[in-house]
């Protein structure tokens, strides 16, 4: 709940550990867009032959965090329903 890992095809020039960025997430919940944004800091970068993955750490405001929990709950419930045929 306090981090996100992004896969990037190209790595932004100059971005390094502990740099501050703003993360915008646009998700869909109840057929409506759920937009969350927060300041974050770069934590770790790893690289494969084809792309980069970068982990950013952040702390959501309580209201945003609740929305993200509800979003994850809905996604997990739909996976459970599909898996169990409910």
């Amino acid at each position, binding site marked *: 709940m306090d981090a996100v890992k992004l896969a990037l095809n190209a790595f932004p020039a100059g971005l390094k550990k502990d740099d501050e960025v703003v993360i915008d997430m646009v998700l869909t919940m109840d057929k409506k867009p759920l937009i969350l944004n927060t300041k974050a800091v770069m934590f770790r970068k790893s690289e494969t032959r084809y792309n980069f993955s970068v982990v950013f750490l952040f702390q959501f405001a*309580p209201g945003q965090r*609740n929305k993200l*929990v*509800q979003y*994850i*709950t809905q996604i*997990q*419930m739909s996976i*459970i*329903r599909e898996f*169990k045929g*409910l």
Partner: protein
Amino acid sequence: MDNEKILFDNGTHKCVMFSFDDESHEDAFLSVNQYLIVQNGHGILIDPGSSAVFDELYEAVSRHVEVENIKFIFLSHQDPDVSGAIAQWSISTLAKFIMSGLWTRFMSHYGFMSMDRVLPLGDHGAKLKFGQDSLWFVPAHFLHSPGNFSLYDSCSKIIFSGDIGAAILNTPEYYKIVENFEEHKKHLYGFHKRYMGSNKLCRAWVGHVEKLAVDMIAPQHGFIFEKEKVKEFLAWFKELQCGSDYIQELY
């Protein structure tokens, strides 16, 4: 109507009543109450209800306690208006689930997958101590569910009675409280006559409850009973003919 009401608060111990309903079925008039106890920053959620009210209740609960600090979720029995969102609560919290051992195996039908987080109650119930006080899971079997418990909180002196004390009536504008028991009886009778097991069972439950210091009965549907109304309700319930007492009407 306000969706929440503080029933008790002494600074370290708080009991909150929520009233969230599945609005698509509002005309059915069986309004639903959910409850939260917060003890020193730790929460116990009581009968959180169906998935239709999950989002609203989650928001409301998180205004009173850090959701990570919800330690227990108590389910008085297996019905969907009580346990229907057990899977959602298991995903969104770290809580353990307390319910009759009769129902654990059925919870997977609600999508629940975390059986290791269930604390199943035996028929005689259990006590959970906190400081000088305790929570007592009081047997209430066949009232109406065959594996059913009420929850007595010795600090607030509230008994959370599940479907016992449920009333079918319109939701008032303010606090859901019984003003006049004689008047309220007619909203209790039909529900209790058909849903409750028998007078023998009513008496057994009242026998337990009369030994406790109870200031308030907080049912899962309908209105709160306070002070004198507690005694009036217990006296009424003790004499109630219901369920198998009317076997000739049922078979």
